[in-house]
């Protein structure tokens, strides 16, 4: 029995989180293939894929906001057996925001005014962790539409993994903030308030009243959509703690990513969100840290220049001095790798204690660049 396999079968939404550069996007795609190999049904992987590499690996030229199905023929060509359908979509922040505005705007006038506002793009790109919120929002949307049995979200890389968990809450908080209320009171009465409040004098002096007015104009429009936005953000927030949702934290066993993974795992528990599994990616084989290998390495270093090199040279029919050099290098470099493996093994046990399931994926030769590679990875995830 493998718990990750069960997780893929029992949950409806899986959020893949972790620090940047640990192979999160690749693992998310492999989880999708694993789910599609396990059983029938429709699986969607929603990704950010900053390197656009996943598209190539999946045999697609590109894919966008709209879910695209991976051709079943591509799977069979790559020797990957799938029983279900695998779909992919790319998280597009700009398109996502436009869609949100269109949905929540009370009328066409407000919608067009917001979309045409010069600050709109700039602000949606920056404020209250816009990307993270959009990822959550799209997850909610896809789930609510009921087109898929399982939606796997590759969360955007962020400097703080927590921001994705807190994004919906911050959106609600933003709409209730004093700043927004002040910015959106009619200009005339703000002048009156301003005269009495030193803050507004300072803000006015520092930022310039013209700039404040630009922001205010935008938020007056924005506030017309408050009801819809707040309701939606609360729904998205509820989805994060929903029993149908689980998180998979991806990490390597290097210091910084595993530190981040432990922090993330603890934060999930504190927020009553479900940590389904931790996937340790690009892991060194555990036996590298073992005593047997260390003994052999030490013996090899001793014998590298002796008769061993001579007999190997004879068998392979190569000059003995090259064999000596090779054996000496292999033996003397072993300690470095063993040290890293020992440290990884230590971190692995720390992480394993934090999650119901811990899966280690070995460092596969080279980078994964095709469907067959993703299929192999999916195999490791299902049967580690």
């Amino acid at each position: 029995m493998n718990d990750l396999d069960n997780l893929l079968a029992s949950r409806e939404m899986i959020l893949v989180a972790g620090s940047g550069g640990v192979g999160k996007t690749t693992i998310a795609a492999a989880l999708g293939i694993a789910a599609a190999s396990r059983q029938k049904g429709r699986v969607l992987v929603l990704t950010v894929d900053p390197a656009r590499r996943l598209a190539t690996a999946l045999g697609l030229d590109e894919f966008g906001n709209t879910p695209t199905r991976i051709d079943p023929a591509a799977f069979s060509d790559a020797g990957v057996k799938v029983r279900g359908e695998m779909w992919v979509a790319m998280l597009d922040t700009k398109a996502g925001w436009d869609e949100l505005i269109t949905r929540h705007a009370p009328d066409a006038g407000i919608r067009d005014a917001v979309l045409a506002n010069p600050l709109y793009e700039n602000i949606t790109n920056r404020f209250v962790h816009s990307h993270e919120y959009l990822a959550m929002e799209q997850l909610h949307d896809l789930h609510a539409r009921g087109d898929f049995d399982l939606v796997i979200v590759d969360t955007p890389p962020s400097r703080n993994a927590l921001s994705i968990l807190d994004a919906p809450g911050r959106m609600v908080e933003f709409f209730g903030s004093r700043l927004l209320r002040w910015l959106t009171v009619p200009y005339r009465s703000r002048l009156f308030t301003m005269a009495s409040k030193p803050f507004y004098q300072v803000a006015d002096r520092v930022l310039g009243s013209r700039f404040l007015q630009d922001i205010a104009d935008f938020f007056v429009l924005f506030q017309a959509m408050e009801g819809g936005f707040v309701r939606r953000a609360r729904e998205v927030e509820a989805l994060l703690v929903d029993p149908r949702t689980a998180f998979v934290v991806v990490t390597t066993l290097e210091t910084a990513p595993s530190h981040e993974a432990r922090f993330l795992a603890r934060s999930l528990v504190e927020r009553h969100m479900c940590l389904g599994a931790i996937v340790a990616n690009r892991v060194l084989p555990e036996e590298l840290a073992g005593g047997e290998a260390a003994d052999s390495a030490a013996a090899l270093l001793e014998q590298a220049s002796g008769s061993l090199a001579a007999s190997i040279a004879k068998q392979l029919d190569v000059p003995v001095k090259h064999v000596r050099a090779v054996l000496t290098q292999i033996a003397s470099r072993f300690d470095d790798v063993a040290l890293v493996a020992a440290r990884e093994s230590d971190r692995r046990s720390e992480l394993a204690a934090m999650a119901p399931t811990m899966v280690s994926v070995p460092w596969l030769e080279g980078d994964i660049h095709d469907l067959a590679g993703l299929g192999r990875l999916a195999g490791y995830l299902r049967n580690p």
Partner: protein
Amino acid sequence: MAARYGRRTLVCEMDAKGALANAFDVGPLEFEPTEVAPNLHAMAMNTEDSLREYLRLFVRIPFLGRIGPLASTFDFVADAAPGVKEILGVGKLCWEVRERNYDLVVVDAEASGHIVSQIGAARVIADLVQVGLVRDQTQWMLDILDDPMRTGVAVVTTPEEMPVTETIELLARLRAETGAHAAAVIANRVLPAVFNRREQSIVDRLDDAMALLVDAVGPGACTVLAAARLTESRRSTGATHLDRLRNWIADSDDVVDGLPIITVPELFARASGPRVVSLVADALTDELDPEPIGRSAGGKRHE
């Protein structure tokens, strides 16, 4: 390294994660710089303190006692208004450069996606804000940031696919969206080549002699050989990515052309703490072979 060469150096961490404090093995860093080693000062950026200092220096606010609630409200503006938070951080650092409080200001900038907004904040503000003190303040910052003699962006990467791809994107965006100049790419944790081609072919054929090896050194021989192959495979994958970076730099136009790639070897040591900082400084010194004190111009370096 700069501090070892006698230059009064400030290191600033922008993302408040505490990694810098770890690296120097000191308590949490604050906005007010702490001397962590001779000539070496460290600080952590904090928007609220930066705003406080800014108001004191430029607006001459008389009621400092009331700044608490002011700053928290300001935080919302800073969150919502493009570039305000960034400009406070960058502004503080530019101020230290302008006042010549240090010979070198090293900025541990945020992840590559954010750094363009940090460096570009002054320009965004200049475009968006028509009047007001912030706008007046942007020009001198741009003068410092855009001057290759004073500001250089050192882009740090590792020989892996994503970091190299992000480095290429960052170099392109820096050129397109900011006036700042890339000074170098630092490739960290590069594995050295161990075998030459002739030796590699022997390594590839060692399976044929496995019985001899196991007889001589015990059953762990397979694992030892596997370790060597794994390391070599990692090295050659990494080398492919660095080549991609090297080719991209060579193929791009004259702004990035000739950009040096400085390599720091994989240290096989613990990944944080003063020991590693010291080892990396040794490696950089070997690689850069810096001139003696007093020759190079005062500057500022990001990341």
